């Protein structure tokens, strides 16, 4: 009996430690991707003097950074056709929250409770700023209904955002 008790606690502790470690790796990758994505998005669509952000180029640029550390979580393109309905709901000047992404995929019956998808979003707020966000729920070992935090079953939230003023690559 004592072995069962101690082993149970040990397993719980091990899972918590592994989950935190994986989540740290994933969020750090998201952080680096957002930083790179901002550099791509903030300017240079068409020409060096253009003030039109290159929003649709962000996904292809950050995918190599994100794909591997996400450990089985699908990295989705905000401008892909499968997210057209969510784009329509959120509008052209904003990015979705992690819960909006998970709810959307839950409605599509993709992943338990909509987890296992993160979206790479780049949006122009219409006021001279460009925002890059990586949001969604990454796969984890958190059992359903566990803990008082902002968790979903088998998923931990990823929510990294950066926003800067639009600029040009010219004087």
């Amino acid at each position, binding site marked *: 009996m004592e072995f069962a008790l101690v082993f149970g606690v040990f397993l719980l502790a091990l899972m918590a430690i592994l989950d935190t470690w994986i989540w740290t790796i994933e969020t750090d990758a998201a952080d680096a991707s957002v930083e790179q994505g901002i550099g791509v998005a903030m300017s240079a669509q068409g020409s060096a003097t253009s003030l039109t952000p290159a929003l649709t180029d962000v996904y292809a640029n950050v995918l190599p950074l994100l794909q591997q550390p996400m450990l089985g979580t699908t990295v989705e393109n905000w401008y892909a056709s499968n997210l057209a309905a969510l784009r329509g709901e959120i509008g052209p000047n904003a990015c979705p929250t992690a819960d909006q992404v998970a709810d959307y995929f839950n409605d599509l019956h993709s992943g338990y409770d909509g987890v296992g998808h993160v979206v790479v979003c780049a949006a122009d707020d219409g006021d001279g700023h460009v*925002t890059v966000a990586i949001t969604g729920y990454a796969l984890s070992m958190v059992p359903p209904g566990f803990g008082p935090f902002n968790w979903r079953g088998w998923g931990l939230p990823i*929510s990294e955002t950066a926003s800067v003023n639009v600029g040009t690559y010219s004087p």
Partner: protein
Amino acid sequence: MRTRPSWRRGQRAQAALEMALVLPVMIVIVCGFVGMMLELRAENEFQTAVDLSAQAALVPPLGDQTASQADSAYAFLHTLNPSGSESGYLTVTTPITCTGPYLEGEIDLSARGIPAPVTCTAQATLNFSATPISVFWFWSIQLSATADAYPPQYRQCQTTSGSTSPFQC
């Protein structure tokens, strides 16, 4: 009336005692590890916010100090996202401050032709007292980040009156 054998009662008491000894140690290990990971996360995010602020300071033309300060402050606040994942335990104590000849309208080239950078710094405090992790992390941690951004060539030419640069646009 039948009673439980004394050896079995003793075994249960021993199991409970061992559990009572092991559990606090496990909790401290888990809280310590989770706290360390959250600390690394916060540090990384804080550094990213300062990096982007330094780069944002170079978006306005040479010598437009007001716009440079405003752009870097905007990038800092909207990248750090205090209402997001770090809410509740990260407090900015010294807001972003950027300095450098670029902001004064000057381009100081080094002997190797590299312009002097814009340097941005900020400080924050990490405090887990409002979270369960405070069982182990009961002290606060000071975060300090510095980032340099070098004016690219297309930003090194004179555009405003009063700016001094070896290049003309």
